[in-house]
């Protein structure tokens, strides 16, 4: 398997870990798991939307990585490589689960014009206790879950995990412009939903009414 060149330099520390992995050092395997399992699990959780399925993806990702480590050429970062395996594993399982509705080749599900902003409530200056409340966090998670899969994965890697555009493209086998387009759509969709939520929550905190649930 050949991975495209990442622009980010691989550290000596990581080169050493890869060397030990390829020599079959068990402690190095454990180190790789310790370093990346949390992030892979969170990615899997967001892609699969349920804990049991996320755990399957987590285990399968590391089993695949162990089998393929000899062929890892070190041209992308280890983390990027693992994200790519996890993403492929998740896509395969999603396709197994819903073979009729899920296709790897399915076009982006958003229609032209979908991303035009309609919410203009400036929630930036709301107090932290509103922006960071448990309820707001739950709304943020629900908003991500509601994104089409093709947008969600890009947003998770780029904006939550903090990969660069190039690294995200490498991890997903997409072009940089494709990553940017999907990222833009994901961001605008999330902004739209959070704006609507915070507008409702600002009104209800003024009137003391509970927030109307999202439809």
């Amino acid at each position, binding site marked *: 398997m050949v991975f495209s060149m990442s622009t980010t330099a691989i550290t000596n520390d990581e080169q050493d870990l890869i060397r030990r992995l390829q020599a079959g050092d068990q402690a190095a395997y*454990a180190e790789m798991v310790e370093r990346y399992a949390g992030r892979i699990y969170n990615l899997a959780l967001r892609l699969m939307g349920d804990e049991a399925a996320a755990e399957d993806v987590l285990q399968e990702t590391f089993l695949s990585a162990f089998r393929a480590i000899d062929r890892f050429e070190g041209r992308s970062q280890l983390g990027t490589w693992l994200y790519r395996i996890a993403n492929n594993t998740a896509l395969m399982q999603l396709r197994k689960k819903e073979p009729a509705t899920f296709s790897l080749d399915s076009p982006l599900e958003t229609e032209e014009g979908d991303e035009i902003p309609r919410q203009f409530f400036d929630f930036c200056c709301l107090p932290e206790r509103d*922006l960071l409340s448990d309820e707001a966090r739950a709304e943020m998670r629900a908003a991500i879950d509601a994104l089409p899969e093709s947008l969600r994965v890009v947003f998770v890697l780029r904006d939550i995990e903090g990969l660069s555009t190039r690294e995200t493209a490498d991890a997903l086998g997409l072009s940089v412009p494709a990553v940017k387009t999907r990222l833009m759509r994901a961001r605008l969709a999330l902004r739209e939903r959070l704006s609507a939520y915070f507008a409702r929550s600002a009104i209800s905190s003024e009137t003391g009414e509970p927030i109307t649930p999202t439809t």
Partner: protein
Amino acid sequence: MTEHTQHDHDRSECRRLLSSLSDYVDGELDDALCRAIEAHMAECENCRIVVNTLTRTIELYHTAPAPDLPQDVRVRLYKTLKLEDFIASEPPDATEG
């Protein structure tokens, strides 16, 4: 709360710039387009709000704490990978979730 009265005339400009806003908040636009966006924002409250809330949305997601790997998931992972011998060094606060 927000009035959108006097700038309804140039909605086409808002739409034209919309696809660049994501690159704009990432600081990945060329100078000319940045200046065009900033000039437009100076006159268009809606686009100002979109840029501010877009930035804030990204920030909120980026800074939300990632949940720890649940300890039972971690234990089963190490077993599946036949790495049980290395599980001793568990993080102290991995019980959440």
